[in-house]
């Protein structure tokens, strides 16, 4: 249920890199309970959009609102405190810290959190993600797929309102990919909101309830997956026409 507008609202976001418009006036709104697939060819501006919506980049123009509150140009940790979690395109874990410690970091940043409560919660999520047996290993020693799962777990430790997952399926074994999709669906059913970026149309279409397509720094389609798939502009962008 939205209070004071959408959960996340990016309005007319612009960001250039060396003269190239990575995001050129992008509007992007996320409502409570959404499970959005954000797709587009390489270099279409998907990751830049996520970076703008999570405080990792500051837009040159445009605004970001969280439940109607203006948060443009705030640092990433303030976004995290306001319930915005994310994962990264190339997995970014705390490599020389244990799996459990990776989970504790976000949990302990919350005010009035205690070690005992956060550790218990971390263990619950590690069970859920099948990572409990490796909790005392350094994160760098996990397999690629396990690292993706841990990154998801770390994001969950913020108990966020919305999770932005940047290419969660990239380089993940098909079996583990299926597991990841199941976990995302379970979390979505329990009330979490997701924005999932990926190239893998098949995986995205298995999870997404709404598809947003980007090309050349602009949003070219936004709607139900079936409608977006039939959109000629989208097909053209994907086939490079």
């Amino acid at each position, binding site marked *: 249920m939205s209070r004071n507008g959408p959960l996340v609202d990016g309005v007319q976001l612009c960001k250039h890199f060396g003269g190239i418009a990575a995001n050129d006036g992008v509007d992007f709104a996320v409502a409570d309970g959404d499970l959005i697939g954000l797709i587009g060819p390489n270099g279409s501006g998907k990751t830049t959009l996520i970076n703008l919506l*999570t*405080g*990792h980049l500051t837009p040159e123009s445009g605004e970001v609102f969280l439940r109607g509150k203006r948060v443009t140009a705030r*640092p*990433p*940790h303030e976004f*995290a*405190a306001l319930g915005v*979690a*994310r994962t*990264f395109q190339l997995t*970014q*874990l*705390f*490599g*020389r*810290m*244990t799996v*459990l*410690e990776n989970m*504790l*970091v*976000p949990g*302990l*940043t*919350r005010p009035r959190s205690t*070690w*005992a409560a956060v*550790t*218990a919660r*971390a263990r619950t999520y590690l069970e859920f993600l099948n990572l409990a047996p490796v909790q*005392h290993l*350094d994160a760098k020693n996990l397999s690629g797929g396990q690292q993706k799962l841990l990154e998801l777990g*770390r*994001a969950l*430790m*913020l108990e966020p309102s919305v999770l932005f997952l940047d290419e969660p399926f990239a380089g993940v074994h098909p079996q583990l990919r299926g597991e990841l999709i199941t976990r995302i669906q379970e979390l979505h059913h329990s009330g979490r909101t997701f924005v999932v970026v990926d190239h893998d149309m098949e995986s995205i279409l298995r999870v997404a309830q709404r598809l947003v397509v980007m090309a050349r720094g602009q949003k070219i389609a936004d709607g139900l997956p079936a409608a977006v798939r039939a959109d000629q502009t989208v097909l053209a962008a994907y086939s490079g026409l």
Partner: protein
Amino acid sequence: MRGLHVYVLLAAAVVSLVYAHLLNSYWMHVAIIAMFYGILTASWSLLAGYGGLFSLGHMAFASVGGYTSALLVQWYGIPIPLGMAAGIALCCTLGGLIGWVCLRMSGPYLAIFTLAFSEIVRITFSTEDQVTAGMAGLHTAPLFQSASRLPYFYTAFGLLAGSLAIIGFIVHSRWGLFLRAIREDEQAAGASGVAVARFRILAFAVASGFAGLAGGFYAHYIGVMTPSVGSLDLMALVVVMTVIGGMERIPTAVGGAFGVELLQEFLRAYGQWRLVIFGLVLLLTMRFARNGLLTPLWLQFLRVSDSARIPRSPRPTREAGREGSGG
């Protein structure tokens, strides 16, 4: 309830305090200087080992602490502990400021920046000789009117123990966890809700404060302050001590200070060749034991002392997340 290793260390501390008077004046001086370096390596380990902030300005802060205390005591006749406290406060402020200026810097950029800062401090103390007496050295009030070094030994011991207690508390608290997270991946730490800028500034301020404390004690122990306290030679020595011991754990960093200081004395006959030997040891450490020469020993010590206390069973909840941060 902590592991048995804490009690073993406490027992060792009590024994060394009880039998300290048996040391002759020379070795007592060596022990005092080793403890002075112990404070510096522990605090540099907090900065570089835990926070990944490879600062080369640590000795500059020590000299700021030393000169501040010495000059305030000389000018205003304030009690020495108050002068040292003022030195610590100034170092904390200055350290926090440097941390703020260096917010976006890491690795070689931060090292070069702090190197330049360190040289500026040293040359300023050297040039402003009307105030600091320059290279001639500023005579400082002694902490104790005693012919024996024993009071200094106890003071150094107390300061080191206090510093280790505070730094140990920090690295075992959530602050230590956040610092390590920042070291591993600043961006991911931010995304996990860690206020990266605040903790980097805090690490600089706290570590610089301890450098100031060490400098203040040194000034009132040696009796003379020279700009060379902030020289790159001594900074290099602190780096060598910390890295050879093991920079990612406080006990190994302090062990490195004691080990290298002792070696310095044993190898005194070799003059400047000692430094070549330390250089070689450093090279070999970086190549073959990047976590430091003392880290495996320390981990073994922890294993042995803890297995003596409890059978190998699931760890207590509160300890579980803290392994890897060592002692």
